[in-house]
């Protein structure tokens, strides 16, 4: 019998379909394709090719090296085809029954290594540095009053919307409005908090650590869970054990612990499903600018809990999912969890 499971935060239902189920090791089909750099094409993210990008916003360079040349470890540049732009103003207006505004915001790329390497080849030091750079960028964007939310994500592999150049990088987008997807979460956590006076994520972590069957890995400060209502096979969430709503205020001493856990989880997943395409997305609280606003802003610091979601793109989202917001997942998360947890890796 298939089972319907409800995500306790946003109320999304997922069908865990036993009819279509496969063993965890049978999902390794959607491997990431080989890089397709055209003959003579240069990678704009490599050290030495700085002339191909817009002037850098931020970089960690060796002492004495001037900007926009070689000699860096991590480099942040504006996207060459930005979805949102830093110049101009919002200019909200209407068109008949519709509302519009200019696409004001920020769209930055964090290049995570000077050499042409992929995510899996990054060292622990490089990943840790990248997390710190992302935190620096969010703290800086917080000063821009027009930016309400900062979305941090990675698209890895074509099936996950990744580009054809396979140089390790993360994207940062600052948006002028609060995001629908985050609003849904905030409404869900607020409703739970109003009823129970507790954070739903904290309750979930407690329950999952006790039950154990969906705990993929655990470190001193963080835990990786196979989501109870996983939309996708091998969907995994990484959460801080201690309650906190803002990722950018994380204690930087905890970054090595976070880096190690995240790298271990992804390495374990690769051991089971190969070089899989995925999206890696930060969920964190919006910047709190409008004091006196009611609704989910009142208790946000107590009810919301930042986390990352790893969404492997091994199956295709079809008409049913688009039409219903229901997802069909052919792999019970408990089976995915067991396979990943038992994989032996060294990072």
């Amino acid at each position, binding site marked *: 019998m298939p089972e319907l499971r409800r995500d*306790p935060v946003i109320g999304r239902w997922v069908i865990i*379909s036993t009819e279509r189920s496969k063993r965890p090791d049978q999902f390794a089909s959607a491997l990431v394709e080989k890089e397709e750099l055209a003959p003579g094409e240069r990678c704009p993210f490599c050290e030495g090719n700085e002339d191909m990008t817009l002037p850098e916003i931020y970089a960690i360079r060796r002492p004495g090296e001037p900007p926009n040349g070689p000699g860096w470890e991590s480099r942040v540049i504006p996207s060459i085809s*930005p979805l949102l*732009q830093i110049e101009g103003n919002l200019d909200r207006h209407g068109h008949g029954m519709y509302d519009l505004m200019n696409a004001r915001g920020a769209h930055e790329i964090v290049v995570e290594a000077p050499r042409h390497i992929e995510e899996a080849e990054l060292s622990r030091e490089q990943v840790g540095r990248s997390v710190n750079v992302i935190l620096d960028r969010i703290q800086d964007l917080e000063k821009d009053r027009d930016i309400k939310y900062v979305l941090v994500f990675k*698209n890895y592999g074509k099936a996950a919307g990744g580009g054809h150049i396979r140089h390790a990088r993360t*994207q940062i987008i600052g948006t002028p409005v609060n995001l629908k997807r*985050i609003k849904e979460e905030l409404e869900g956590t607020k409703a739970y908090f109003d009823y129970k006076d507790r954070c739903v994520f904290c309750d979930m972590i407690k329950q999952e650590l006790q039950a154990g069957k969906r705990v993929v890995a655990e470190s001193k400060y963080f835990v990786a869970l196979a989501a109870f209502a996983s939309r996708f096979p091998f969907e995994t969430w990484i959460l801080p054990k201690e309650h906190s709503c803002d990722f950018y205020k994380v204690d930087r001493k905890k970054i090595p612990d976070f880096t190690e856990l995240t790298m271990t989880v992804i390495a374990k997943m690769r051991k089971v499903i190969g070089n899989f395409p995925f999206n890696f997305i930060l969920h964190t609280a919006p910047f709190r600018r409008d004091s006196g606003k009611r609704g989910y802003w009142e208790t946000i610091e107590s009810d919301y809990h930042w986390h990352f979601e790893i969404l492997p793109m091994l199956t295709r989202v079809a*008409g049913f999912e688009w*039409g*219903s917001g229901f997802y069909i997942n052919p792999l019970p998360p408990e089976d995915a969890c067991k396979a990943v947890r038992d994989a032996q890796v060294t990072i």
Partner: protein
Amino acid sequence: MNELIRDPITARWIIVPMDSSADTVHFATEIHSKNKDNCPFCYGSETMTPPEIVAHRKSGGANTPNWSVRVVPNKFPALRIEGEFERQGIGVFDMMSGVGAHEVIIDTPDHFRDMADLTHAEAEEVVWAYRARSLDLRKDKRFKYILIFKNYGRSAGASLEHPHSQLIALPIVPKRVHEEMEGAAKYYDYKERCVFCDIVREELEENERIIYNDDRFIAFCPYVSRFAYEVWILPKKHSSDFANIDRDCVACFAKALRDSLARIKGFLKDPAYNFIIHTSPINGHEREDYHWHVEIMPKLSKVAGFEWGSGFYVNPVLPYIAAKNLMSVAIPEK
């Protein structure tokens, strides 16, 4: 430079270019295998599917060839028709038993003709099957919503190539539908008009994005398209429930649907697509604030981290340009 547009129904934001520079956006072409070996939906393979629920045929018995449209239970159903509907909770988590119906409507016996290639009369038969199944399943009191949709091409999630549509009857009203109903209800509360009726009026007035227009139906590339070449089809007369569609409307709707798909196929070189019939939950009466319609979404690019994380969409093609391009191709008359 880009611009943000807000969908008046669901309040989601969409990023579109401000100028027509994206007139020449190129998309990867969908590859179709064009192989009918062992196809369970072709003539002669009737025993490869579970026994049929209903079929249109001129002669012969059930589960034999010579049908024109055939409805069968999905061999690998996402939900099962047998069993009681039960709810339970474990700590913070809620669960239900997976009761529901999952049917496949085989649009045509011809493996190589998708709905875009059918005649208007053939497409009409498919629509009649949608309607009949929808009316029959609503008699089962366990079901709250009936979703009819089509996945065409591998990128759109189709696992079998033979043209087919699907129907899923659900024990709850799905989240997306709920959101849409709420958005429409809010608009109605404020303006005492149906938001979809307003959209139709606005599209007719601006007359820039229409790709099909007759007495009863209109198809257009909506001002708030989430995807490049997205097309919506709406009945002009207000009605919240697809299953209440009458005889004359079935013919017009089939025409609007076939013609829209033929334009998409013609201009975009046979892309993968999904279409979904958005209709009101099963509750027996017509609603003033909701309007049934079809959304066709060509699958031209991949949904990436930004869309997943934000609920924002990025549409690289301005809808009026999409409409102009779709109107530039010739389609069969009948």
